[in-house]
């Protein structure tokens, strides 16, 4: 088994959301922290897609940003091709690593600078890393990139507002591919797009993966999309990974109660009218997470141990799950 391209160990990120110092002193408030990511571990093999799913506040977007270096981890490590991305690596090494991983964002309207031409937007990674210095060569490379995502070469001279949402997302993909990266982090890349446009973008992403052997980390809240694109799926809840399994296994035999609840809750066009277990409660406030297992207040299978002891991600029958009820064999 070859070494994974990306390996994440006990990754954590805590944000200080305390009130300003003066307010705290006057109102005698304690400092407040949000454990957006609280000990997440996974590995992604080269050429594969790992999807992270969860509802709002589960920390999946924070994990994405930790991986590409937009945030520094509070704890834990991210290893890319065997080398630590945040550690003692020198600047030159870090820059080289940055070339090999890129990110695609959710909002097609905010992810492109409205005052820049497409040529500059897509060409920026090339000029920043000194890969292309000649203006004519830059134009040619950018045109090539645009063609590879299904746009026209003439689009290099246009501005973002002249494109639709789906086309802008393709421009984002073209920009991400400029430095020929091996790893792409995609943060809800199709959530803001119409269904038919989403199909186009997902098809392009799959084609590119096949052609260039790309590795994806795909963040989404849409389980149907995740099912379509991923090889492995990780389910997150309140900053923790509750289940990690191959796609087929997760969708056919979900173990963790939260995964089951999620799968049950999705309105699906082919499977409407099926009997469903009613869903309980809402996601708790991240400022004061429940003790022990974060899901226990909403879990139909919770017992005393669940409210005291936080379950670790354990391997069970080929998958990983963080649930006492599963490891105890109760469900």
């Amino acid at each position: 088994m070859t070494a994974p391209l990306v390996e994440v160990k006990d990754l954590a990120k805590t944000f200080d959301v305390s009130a300003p110092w003066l307010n705290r002193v006057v109102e005698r408030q304690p400092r407040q922290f949000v454990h957006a990511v609280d000990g997440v571990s996974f590995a992604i093999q080269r050429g594969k897609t790992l999807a992270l799913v969860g509802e709002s506040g589960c920390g999946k977007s924070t994990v994405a940003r930790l991986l590409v270096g937009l945030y520094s981890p509070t704890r834990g490590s991210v290893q890319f091709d065997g080398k630590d991305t945040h550690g003692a690596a020198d600047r030159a090494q870090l820059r080289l690593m940055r070339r090999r991983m890129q990110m695609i964002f959710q909002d097609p309207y905010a992810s492109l600078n409205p005052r820049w031409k497409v040529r500059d937007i897509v060409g920026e990674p090339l000029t920043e890393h000194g890969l292309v210095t000649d203006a004519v060569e830059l134009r040619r490379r950018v045109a090539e990139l645009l063609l590879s995502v299904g746009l026209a070469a003439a689009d290099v001279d246009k501005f973002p507002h002249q494109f639709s949402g789906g086309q802008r997302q393709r421009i984002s993909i073209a920009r991400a591919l400029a430095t020929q990266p091996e790893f792409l982090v995609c943060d809800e890349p199709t959530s803001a797009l119409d269904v038919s446009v989403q199909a186009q973008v997902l098809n392009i992403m799959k084609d590119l993966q096949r052609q260039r052997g790309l590795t994806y980390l795909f963040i989404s809240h849409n389980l149907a999309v995740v099912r379509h694109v991923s090889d492995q799926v990780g389910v997150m809840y309140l900053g923790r990974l509750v289940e990690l399994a191959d796609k087929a296994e997760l969708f056919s035999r979900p173990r963790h109660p939260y995964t089951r609840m999620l799968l049950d809750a999705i309105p699906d066009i082919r499977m409407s009218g099926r009997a469903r277990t009613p869903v309980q409660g809402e996601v708790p406030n991240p400022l004061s997470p429940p003790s022990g297992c974060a899901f226990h207040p909403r879990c139909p299978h919770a017992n005393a141990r669940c409210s005291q002891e936080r379950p670790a991600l354990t391997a069970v029958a080929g998958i990983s799950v963080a649930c006492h009820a599963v490891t105890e064999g109760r469900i």
Partner: protein
Amino acid sequence: MAGAVPLLEVRHLRVEFPSRRGTLLALDDISFSIAPGEVLGVVGESGAGKSLTGAAIIGLLDPPGRIAGGEILLAGQRIDNLPYEQMRAIRGRRIGAIFQDPLTSLNPLYTIGRQLIETIRTHLPVSEDQARARAVKLLQETGIPAAEQRIDQYPHQFSGGMRQRVVIALALAAEPKLIVADEPTTALDVSIQAQIISLLRRLCKEHGTAVMLVTHDMGVIAETCDRVAVMYAGRIVEVGPVADVIHRPSHPYTVGLMGSIPAMDEDRERLLQIDGAMPRLNAIPSGCAFNPRCPQVFERCRSERPDLLEAGPTRAACWRVADGLRSVA
């Protein structure tokens, strides 16, 4: 159902936006009806005009948009040409509205109790105490725990899903016969979405309220609606019972739409994709608006715009249907 007076009837509705670049026709000859107690879904992608249809019915079209033709009838009575005051009386009492963002649907400065009571008393001749009792009951029906205490709380003290329940309670407060819901679950998490959908469906059945559910999410439509109308570029391209439109669509656009949605029960290498994009309002092709992207286009499509024609259990605006050549689903 034949012979029964439809609760809502829209006939040949046209909505236009005069702008300095010319007049843009945003809704082009829309016709449909909703029976009492029925849930009609209006689905389409962005720019198709579904939200605009809802806005036109409630009478909340943003100027310079205006109704340029056609009629809207509520229980046989025209409401599209009413003066502002009369429309205001109808809105709330006979037509309720639920919008997408629960954060902005509620006034943050008033308790939800105040907002509910105000709505109830505006439309129904009841006393303050009766209105309050009614409001508490509504909150209980929508699943707000400890309704008697929470009725005096402010919107910011509720979570997103709870707020949407309050909005539903507000919409039902004056016992309207029709509710127009515009993307009511889009801003909510998946698990909350499921709760709200089932709540809406249950309450509307209990109160006998008809619903016009506008959304881009086909899954929500599949779970909630009796019939669905598919919109494209300001026109209705297919309408019919939900199961038929989803599983046996006739219009090529509907076929493409259904095919491009990844489903939970099958694995496909590629999703069906419709090349191109929905035309902008100032560049709608002549004839059938879908013809440049249609895999089954022929000559007539480019010159003549098709009406909604019978296509088995559904009606589709497609010349192929007229010729007896049904699209393969």
